[in-house]
Every structure is written in structure tokens, then in C-alpha cells.
């Protein structure tokens, strides 16, 4: 529940097997300290992670869905940007 004293935060968790922090959801909290505790209590109850990032939701700059065609369609026709056009020498092994 949102109240005048609580703002929205986005939560990112890095799982046990490493890799990057992934967005897992959001929560309400009055400040960063309480947001971190709430993230721990809500999103790591089943051993999901070893590191938490939290970010005020209003700090995120998002693309406008109305700009979808302008933003993303031009790349669809440029398949040559995928690395599948290169022959990888066998000695390089797994990339």
C-alpha cells in the first residue's frame, strides 16, 4: 500500500550463480534503509540471491511505448549485425 510517506522502489537481485542483477519487482518504503530491508524480506525468502540493488522507481528513465516503431523497428531489417555471419575458427572453442 502506498502512503504519503512511502515511495516506490525497484528491486534487482543477483542470484547465487552470479551473472548480473536482475529486476525482480518493486516495493514501497519510506527510505533507502527500509527499502533494502523490505527487499530482503520480500524477495530473498527462498534463497534467491546474494546481492540486492534498489533504485527509486522515479530515477528510471523509460522509453515511450508510443515510440516503439521509431526506436526498434529499424533494427529488424539489419540481420547482418548478428554474429552468425562470421566463421569461428575451431581453435577458438566455445564463445
Amino acid at each position: 500500500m502506498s502512503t504519503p510517506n512511502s515511495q516506490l522502489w525497484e528491486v534487482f537481485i543477483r542470484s547465487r550463480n552470479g551473472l548480473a542483477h536482475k529486476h525482480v519487482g518493486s516495493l514501497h518504503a519510506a527510505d533507502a534503509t527500509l527499502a533494502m530491508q523490505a527487499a530482503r524480506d520480500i524477495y530473498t525468502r527462498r534463497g534467491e540471491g546474494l546481492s540486492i540493488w534498489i533504485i527509486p522507481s522515479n530515477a528510471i528513465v523509460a522509453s515511450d511505448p508510443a515510440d516503439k516503431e521509431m526506436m526498434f523497428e529499424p533494427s529488424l531489417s539489419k540481420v547482418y549485425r548478428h554474429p552468425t555471419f562470421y566463421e569461428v575458427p575451431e581453435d577458438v572453442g566455445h564463445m
Partner: protein
Amino acid sequence: MAVASISVNESPLVLYALRRADDALILGHRLSEWCGHAPMLEEDMALANIGLDLIGQARELYSYAGKVEGVGNDEDRLAYLRDVRQYRNLLLVEQPNGDFACTIIRQFLYSAFADLYWRAMMTSSDATLAAIAAKSEKESAYHLRHSAEWVIRLGDGTAESHRRAQAALDDLWAFTGELFHVDGSDRSLIADDVVIDPERLRSAWNATITGVVQTATLTLPAGNWMQKGGRSGNHSEHLGHLLSELQSLQRSFPGAAW
């Protein structure tokens, strides 16, 4: 009540484990009463998490008490089939939830002690108690951090939250003396390094409480008259009501499982 209470042979070690198990079960049950009722979803989860930690601690301590007693009383029988006068928990943990400030102050006063206590108990000469202490200490450290942050925010928040936090501190302060209770039964265990003397922790506990209370702009109550009785089964009126709910299923349907 369809099922009679069991009787427990309270040797010093059994009594010790029951006292700590009862603290954890009763406080855990109190926190479970918040489930679905907390001021916000995030805190609903946080209180339930702390309650589950405590009930987990209670299970291990009851199991150990039953094993030491050695007559077949398991964790369920010890939790569900002892009457109110057989419960050995601190009066502090059975106090009603009250408002959110009251629940947080109660948790803070207990966790500030439990964190120090379990850390010190990791050196117990009893391997089982040392292992339970090591697990409980990590949990208690978070309970302390969580409740202390809320004490600061309630005390140093609005006029209303300050008033409620101060009222809770004033109401619950007289129950803190019992945290350091030691009787003859404990002394034999202390002499054998099975358990620690809680008096060792008093100055550190005072420092934790004083620091957080000052940051929260609250005032420690001046009175030093302390309530006691829980450790020997003399409880406030609230525990009987709590147990009637906690035990009703096993009392009405003995051995019910699902």
C-alpha cells in the same frame, strides 16, 4: 479441553531449553497475529519472516528439551500440551501486539538482548546449544537491525508516531528486568559453562538500547521497578488467551496431522 496436559521433569537443562523455546514460540506466535493486518504489505512480510525465524528456534529448543528429558515428549507435545502455568517464557514476549509501535518496541527490547545472548552462547560447552546459538544469532542480528531502524523512524517521525513509541516504551520497560533473570537452576549450568550468565550482557544491552532510544529522540523510563514471574510460570492474563488459540486444535483433536 479434551486432552490433559503432560507433566515435564524440569531438570536444569530441560528447564533452560524450555524457557528459551517458550520465549521464541510465544513471540513468534504474537508476530504471526500480524499476518494480513500489518500497516503495509512489506511490513506484513517482515513480521511474518521474523515470526518464522523464532518458531524455527523454538522447534530446535523444544526438540532438544524433549531429547534431554528422554521420556518421549517431542516438540509438539511440549508446545501444545503444557498449560499456562507450565510455560516459562518472559512476560515481555506474551504482551499483546497493541499498535505497531508497541510490537516494534517489544521486538527491539527482546532482539537487542537475544542478539547478544545467542552470540555469547556460541561458546557453550553443550554442542547442541552452541549450534542452536550460531543459527539463532544470525537471525537475531537481523531482527535487531529491523526493529531498531523502525524505533528510530517512529520516535523521530511524526508527533503521533513519537507519542505512540514513547507510550510503548513506558509500558514495556518494566518487563525488561526479567531478561537478566537467573535462578538456582541456571546457576548450576552457568558453573559448568553450559550457559552464560546474562549479567555479563547487561552493559552492552544498555548501550544498544540507550543509543537507539536517543537517536529516536525517545526517553528511557526512569523507573527501575521490574516485573517478574514468567520464568516460574506466573504469567499475565494474556498468555492463557494466546495458548487457548495456539493449542485449541491439538487439544480438541489429539494428534491431528495434515
